[in-house]
């Protein structure tokens, strides 16, 4: 697995005072975050805290209204396309086409990422194995799959791109134990290949086993960051951090 390497000291995600407005509502209100290569970071916080917006910002899907936003070494206000092709974003929607089979979907997204026919086939086989998708499931149209099977197919269609930055929004949602284990394997595999992973999840214990670093987001800002070692809590300078009311757990 070839993953882009960075110079020492260059963060994969570097946000300083990032503001994102959804209408007139500030979904992110001056958020600071720095994530290094190969880190797995758990984002936690209550619903509406800004976790999903943060992931979308890192994917270059929403524009910052203010602040400095650099992802994979690129300034997102001017170089969104360069970032987008190197990130994978899992959201609530699976991004699959209902009338195509699971295999056709995975192959389509591999080709859409610019891979040639043989490379797409080989990466698809690798992703399918990683996510535990068998031939019987792959030959079914997506509308005939369960929610969990769709989720795994969606992850496989992202994995074929071998992104440098994974942005996962509730990746374990709707999955059975086999599916959850497959997602954990995918995350470990990505990190061992040098990729960076940001996971927004309410399943704290599960993701904590994958990530020593926990970042708590509330009201559009980081209110607590356990730090890269995971052992020490670093409260951010906000009133929410002082009260701890934003923490989900």
């Amino acid at each position: 697995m070839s993953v882009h390497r960075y110079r020492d000291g260059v963060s994969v995600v570097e946000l300083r005072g990032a503001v994102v407005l959804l209408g007139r509502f500030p979904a992110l209100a001056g958020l600071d975050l720095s994530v290094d290569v190969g880190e797995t970071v758990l984002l936690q916080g209550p619903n509406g805290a800004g976790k999903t917006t943060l992931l979308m910002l890192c994917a270059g899907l929403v524009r910052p209204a203010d602040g400095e936003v650099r992802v994979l070494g690129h300034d997102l206000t001017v170089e969104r396309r360069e970032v987008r092709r190197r990130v994978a974003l899992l959201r609530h929607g699976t991004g699959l086409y209902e009338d195509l089979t699971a295999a056709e979907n995975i192959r389509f997204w591999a080709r859409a990422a610019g891979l040639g026919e043989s490379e797409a086939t080989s990466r698809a086989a690798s992703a399918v194995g990683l996510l535990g998708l068998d031939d019987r499931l792959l030959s079914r149209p997506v509308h005939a799959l369960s929610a969990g099977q769709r989720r795994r197919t969606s992850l496989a269609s992202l994995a074929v791109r071998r992104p440098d930055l994974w942005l996962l929004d509730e990746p374990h949602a709707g999955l059975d134990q086999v599916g959850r284990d497959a997602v954990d394997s995918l995350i470990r595999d990505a990190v061992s290949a040098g990729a960076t992973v940001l996971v927004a999840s309410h399943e704290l214990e599960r993701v904590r086993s994958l990530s020593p670093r926990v970042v708590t987001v509330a009201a559009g800002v980081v209110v607590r960051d356990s730090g890269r070692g995971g052992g020490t809590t670093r409260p951010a300078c906000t009133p929410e951090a002082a009260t701890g009311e934003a923490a989900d757990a």
Partner: protein
Amino acid sequence: MREVFADALLIAAKDLRIEARSRVLVNQVAPFALLVLVLFGFALDADQRTLRTFAPGLFWVAVLLASLLAVQRSTSLEHADGAHTGLRLSGMAPSSVFLGKAAAVFVQLAVLEVLLVVGIVVLYGSTIEDPLLLVVSGLVAGVAVAATGTLYGALASGLGVRETLLPILLLPVLAPVLIGATRAFDDALGAAAVDGWAWLGLLVVFGLVATVLGALAHGALIED
């Protein structure tokens, strides 16, 4: 440039494969268009002379109404489960996505036009006097409708009201296509003494402008 067309081909092939599986064109759009032709016949009291005279206009009104369904279907494919986000993250040029989706809509409209030509010959008693003009004007107008429809489909979906707003946005813009294509078909079907080839020029210009504008503007329309 080669990459743009290769990606457009990938998108078009995907949309047409989905259409072949779902059979929305065969089971819904085509019957709707034929039904429109039949209803026009009832409205005009089944007078074949009148129907022959107005067949070109009725044909193109049926095509435009059916094109609304095809464009809405094309747009909804990407928005049903968030695939449009995947396309934005794929690194594909927005112009590729536009050209691919417009090409798939064009192929569906071309099939629909063949069915409707058979329909006006059988139901209205129309005769084809200039087959070349009929085919060329049908194809060029099809390109114009597909490109404009795809462009406005993206615009309407960006505004978040694609099902309701699309007809109001799209039909007025397609008025020149309706007029030009009807005049060209008037000549091709011998319904009126006009120079259909001259009207074809209008369709060519419209089709080119819609295609180039769509390829350039699609990126801005699907963003934010």
